[in-house]
């Protein structure tokens, strides 16, 4: 099949599929109602720009909080997860108690639903009535919950990466007189990082959306702002706006991840030829 013919066919099939889906949507008995409730251009615009006097906030502006929470959580997760992974990979007998703590930590935070961790920190910490710890904003508790939960996952990604570097690389590094830490720093980690970037970015795409869970603590992030709008105006189009904004946020990262995976694959194939 020629390339042009293939392109024409894929275009045609795309149009047919999308057309069919649109037809079902429009022909559905409740179509008009749904379009008004979820896709009202007027309501979408209103919720996007917001009107605090009317009791609702801009969903677009609220997204900025999601982005900030994501960035803060991302950096902390990368650090905490690496510490956990390195501890769990350590072999020294002295570090045994730390290894146990690391294992329990990962088991617990991978097992408990993120929303429960958000609740526990968001309502539990203020209830402790401590200085500093109990007086933070909802966003701070939310970020802390995201960091605790995601670090457990990401530490496993790190560990897989560390294990992917062959033991003979450690032997080669140590035989030069490099210490365990130097071998990790100069030989093992640089090789591990290459293999873990795609799965790591995958987790971060997920993290971007999960910042929406912090809304349950009352922080005005995009999802919460959309909820306030729908509570005030009784129209759900604000949620559609929030969904579109999250898509705009996550799709570039998703494409970037695909790009890295494809590049890595190509490199491997090129390496295999030699």
């Amino acid at each position, binding site marked *: 099949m020629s390339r042009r013919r293939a392109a024409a066919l894929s275009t045609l099939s795309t149009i047919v599929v999308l057309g069919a889906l649109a037809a079902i949507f429009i022909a559905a008995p409740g179509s008009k109602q749904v379009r008004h409730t979820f896709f009202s251009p007027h309501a979408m615009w209103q919720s996007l720009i917001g009107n605090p006097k009317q009791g609702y906030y801009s969903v677009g502006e609220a997204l900025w909080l999601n982005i900030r929470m994501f960035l803060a959580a991302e950096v902390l997760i990368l650090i905490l997860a690496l510490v956990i992974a390195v501890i769990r990979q350590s072999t020294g007998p002295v570090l045994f108690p730390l290894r146990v703590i690391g294992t329990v930590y990962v088991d617990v935070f991978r097992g408990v639903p993120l929303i429960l961790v958000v609740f526990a920190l968001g309502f539990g910490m203020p209830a402790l009535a401590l200085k500093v710890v109990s007086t933070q904003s909802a966003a701070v508790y939310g970020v802390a919950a995201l960091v605790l939960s995601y670090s457990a996952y990401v530490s496993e990604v790190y560990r897989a990466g560390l294990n992917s570097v062959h033991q003979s690389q450690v032997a080669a590094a140590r035989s*030069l007189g490099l210490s365990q830490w130097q071998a990790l720093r*100069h*030989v093992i980690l640089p090789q591990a990082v290459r293999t873990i970037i795609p799965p790591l970015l995958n987790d971060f795409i997920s993290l971007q959306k999960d910042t929406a869970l912090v809304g349950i603590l009352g922080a005005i992030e995009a999802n919460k702002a959309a909820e306030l709008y729908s509570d005030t105006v009784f129209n759900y189009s604000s949620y559609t706006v929030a969904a579109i904004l999250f898509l705009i946020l996550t799709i570039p990262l998703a494409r970037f991840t695909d790009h890295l995976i494809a590049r890595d694959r190509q490199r491997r194939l090129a390496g295999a030829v030699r």
Partner: protein
Amino acid sequence: MTGQLAGAGDGTTAPAGPAAAVRIEGLRKSFGANLVLDGIDLSLAAHEVICLIGASGSGKSTLLRCVNLLEPIDAGRIWLSDEEITAGGVDENLVRRHIGIVFQSFNLFPHMTVLRNVTLGPVKVLGSSRQAAEAEARELLRRFGLLDKESDFPDRLSGGQQQRVAIVRALAMHPQIMLLDEVTSALDPELVAEVLDVIRELAASGMTMLIATHEMGFAKDIAHRVCFLEDGQIVEDAPPAELFTDPKDERTRRFLRRIVDAGRL
């Protein structure tokens, strides 16, 4: 170099007489229930080249890895020069910088150029300046015909080139002794010679070497002494002329007969 490796006053006694480059006494090592080294005694003088021969699994590689402290030993003692390196309180990182080892599968660092592979040890372990380390690395690469490869990554090189880089990487640390672990076993036949030539040159320059090898002809040429290992023991230890032509032990004879039958000698 007394006191350089061990903590002060640990009371290890140096063997009498001129210190051997490496001395091994009663070395035992097992992996689980599998006894791999069963009482090895071996002494290697400075500038001496000893080849270890024997079937796969006879313990040659494990012996080399024990000397480099890459494998913890179960019993026995090892001295490097006059310093016991198996004593308590010895900093194994300090020991290893004096011992070069080259592996069967090269084990170059794939994320570094040839030059960085060679300079990593001198810069990070010996504390050399980058300029000094690179100048010396280039000198070594030139000596072994690899200077035009300094900016290449290892996967760009042939197996023979990679193994020569691995040898250069070990040499850049100025080791007192080189341990070579079947360094030609992973190579295509046509690439073996270039690596053996490098080792010949090292031997000619007076490098002390302990070489595990399957290349009998090479062992015959280069070694001052050849040790035949079987079941974790040194069965026979003799100059090559003697061991290859007039082996004393029945087990050595059996092994050499198999090698001859396979057309390898």
